[in-house]
């Protein structure tokens, strides 16, 4: 693309720009947009662009408004893309809440005080899931699940929740039991933060504009959760299990496409802010949420099998032991009671069977129509890239160890 045809974004601040999604946004801004890029993150050492790219890096804690204001004043961003969320490993409820909800609130406040024109907030498609009911072709009309209904279920879920949401942890039946709880917690906080961000649209003296994106199941290079977990299943040679009949469709979204959607949203908000009149309701972007997917829902186990295939698996499905939902339920019930009798907790329960057979896919027509969004990387290519990146990383780590 010729530089002149690049879209202009002015001064862009990417909060969390050294994170998984954030650094993909920085890369895309560098390659395809005409703008000055700044990154604000708690630590700016990882995923850092070389100095020659001219990206400004700022260390800062978003939970402190006093720390944010001087940085904002220095950067003078036109648009802020807020992707920061603490990593799921290690951390407690208070810390998560502080970053997700209070941090977002202070970002909003800093934007308003320093005359930022637009804010794009990264939410999650999980905000409309109660983790028990199927989501079939769900779109933005689906309601946010209040924390009560979500937590009601999360206390009961341990195993397959994580299989569904972030892949399998090491063993087909044994993901990190605390993981799903943390995830639900964060989802609730994202919902709270999302509501706050949208409520602040067109408020304050600068009348700044906001919108929120809800990506579903992000994966890609730099992924530390979903793809690595699924890759471990292949390394542990545990690809021979399948819970459920594998008719449940799932959305997995390549991180580069999510980054693309963020840039489009930022651009669209800036364009809106340059208008003298408010846009028509069916073209509105500010104050709106958008589902972001790869527009390629696939059957859950097919995604895992494609990852294994990229890792070198030549197996078909002949070796797979399919535990049907019904049998899984009976087995789960028996195991639950059996383990209960000996005072232990079963790894397979009917509830977990239910989760692994859940359908969760979305309709992202709204993003297509209003943002002009269209995935730029297809799912198979996205998976190949993600697996390749991780394998390279493992190889490097292996070389380091052997030295």
């Amino acid at each position, binding site marked *: 693309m010729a530089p002149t045809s690049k879209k202009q974004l002015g001064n862009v601040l990417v909060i969390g720009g050294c994170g998984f999604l954030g650094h993909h946004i920085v890369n895309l801004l560098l390659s395809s947009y005409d703008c000055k890029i700044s990154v604000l993150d708690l630590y700016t050492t990882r995923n850092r662009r070389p100095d020659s790219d001219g990206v400004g890096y700022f260390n800062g804690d978003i939970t402190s408004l006093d720390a944010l204001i001087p940085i904002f004043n220095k950067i003078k961003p036109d648009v802020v893309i807020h992707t920061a969320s603490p990593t799921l490993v290690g951390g407690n409820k208070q810390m998560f809440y502080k970053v997700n909800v209070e941090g977002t609130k202070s970002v909003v406040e800093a934007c308003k005080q320093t005359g930022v024109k637009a804010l794009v907030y990264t939410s999650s498609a999980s905000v409309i899931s109660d983790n028990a009911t199927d989501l079939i*072709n769900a779109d933005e009309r689906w309601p946010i699940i209040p924390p009560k209904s979500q937590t009601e279920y999360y206390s009961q879920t341990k195993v397959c929740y994580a299989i569904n949401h972030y892949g399998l942890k090491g063993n087909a039946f044994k993901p990190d039991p605390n993981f799903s709880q943390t995830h639900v917690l964060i989802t609730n906080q994202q919902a709270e933060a999302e509501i706050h961000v949208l409520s602040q649209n067109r408020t304050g003296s600068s009348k700044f504009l906001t919108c929120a994106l809800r990506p579903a199941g992000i994966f890609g290079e730099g992924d530390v959760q979903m793809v690595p977990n699924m890759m471990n299943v292949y390394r542990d040679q545990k690809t021979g299990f399948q819970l459920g009949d594998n008719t449940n469709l799932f959305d997995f979204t390549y991180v580069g496409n999510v980054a693309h959607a963020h840039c489009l949203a930022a651009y669209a908000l800036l364009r809106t802010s340059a208008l003298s009149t408010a846009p028509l309701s069916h073209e509105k972007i500010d104050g709106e949420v958008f589902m972001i997917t790869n527009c390629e829902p696939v059957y859950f186990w097919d995604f895992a099998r494609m990852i294994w*295939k990229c890792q070198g698996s030549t197996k078909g499905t002949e070796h797979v032991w399919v535990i049907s939902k019904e049998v899984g339920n009976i087995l789960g019930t028996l195991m639950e009671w059996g383990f209960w009798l000996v005072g232990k907790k079963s790894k397979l329960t009917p509830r977990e069977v239910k989760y692994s057979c859940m359908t969760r896919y979305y309709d992202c027509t709204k993003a297509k129509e209003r943002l002009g969004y269209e995935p730029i990387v297809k799912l*198979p290519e996205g*998976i190949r890239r993600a697996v390749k990146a991780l394998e390279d990383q493992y190889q490097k780590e292996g070389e380091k160890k052997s030295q």
Partner: protein
Amino acid sequence: MGLLKQLPYFLLHPNQLRSIIQWKLWHDPVHTRDPSKESESLKQCFYYLDMTSRSFSAVIQELHPELLVPVAIFYLILRGLDTIEDDMTIPLEKKEPLLRKFDEILELDDWTFTENGPDEKDRELLVHFDCVLKEFKLLKPQYQKVISEYTKKMGNGMADYANNAEHNIHGVQSTKDYELYCHYVAGLVGAGLTRLFVDAELANPALLKRPELSESMGQFLQKTNIIRDLREDFDDKRRFYPKEIWSKHVDNFDDLFVPANIDKALATTSEMVLNALDNVPQCLFYMAGIKDQSVFNFVAIPQVMAIATLEAVFRNPKVTTGVVKITKGDACKLMMESSQNLRTVCDIFQRYTRRIHKKNTPKDPNFLEISIACGQIEQFIESIFPSQDPKKLTLLHGADGPVTTIEDEEKRRQEKEDKKDVFLLLLSVVGTLFVISGLMIGAAYLLGARFDIAFSELTKGKLSPDRDAAQSIVAKHDGHVEL
């Protein structure tokens, strides 16, 4: 015919026989053709229609009276064109002008063609083509115009192909060429028929603004036939699989038929199936635009047959050795189900899509792509017939905690009652057990059972009775021996 021969098969597959009988007995055509009111030439036309196509003939003859004859004549004309194109015994310099000027032939009154090779199966139709021409002139002028226009387009397209030396020697090259061929022989038919449906006010005029929809209808049928006829076409020295696809899996087209290459052949047909599946959402969209039941049946039946055929050929090694067909029983079942409404047609598509997905294997080079194509069909069906209602969900998860609807209230009341029922049931079971045990223990006591001894022995840890010891224990307990 060979019913006796098929008897063992039907004994083993009673469902198949059931479907056939049901179709024959219960199928109620929306319209029925009335031969008594037809002219001799029209009767003759229907005779050739039966002769040239058994499957299409049946659905055509049940069409709305307004379109019955126009569609039948359109079909016969295209079949005539096809018979000339197909015939390799006609030299190119003779064939090409015939194809290009076929629309002009329609203006003639007594044109017939006797130069087809003796083996050409539909040569009789062209020998007696005057009956078709006669009936064509009796059609409403607007229908004549549409038929003539599309005959011309199709004839020219076929002539281009016949002229294409590269294609004749090496077969179809690119996927684009392949789809262009399907456009000439099938996509145009879809477009022409759509014009007739809309002119007769039996379909939504919006279909004319979305020509890609009728195009997909034709493409999907044609592609399915091409995939299925791989072996037959190969034996006839024709190849429609584009080189762009097969060359990814084998070096020479002939290699597809070497038994040792079966995995590569399957990978090739899979990629062809994947290409065809991409047309499905548009086909379903098209069918949503049909207003009349008889027209709906006419367009839907071939489509469901195609998806079922596609499922049958998908990852089926027999494609390289013969013709894979769906069973007659399945065909009857599909006709019954599809001649209802869009919902039942979508259900069939979903069923077969899931079967295709089930047969899909990671060994296939296009494993994930096929999975995605299946998922997209399912998502499209979901967009036509959503299974979730966001309004209801909003009520369920209202912002101020769950808002109860009347249904919920009813459900809760029902659950409460159910719980009470279960409790009462348990109580009565326990009560009955208690009473019966009481009665039994009471009766035993009356008959002289010594519970006092039994209890003291049990407390000592003796769980099983010892018959010899029993007497002595009793004696010891009571202080005397009763002998």
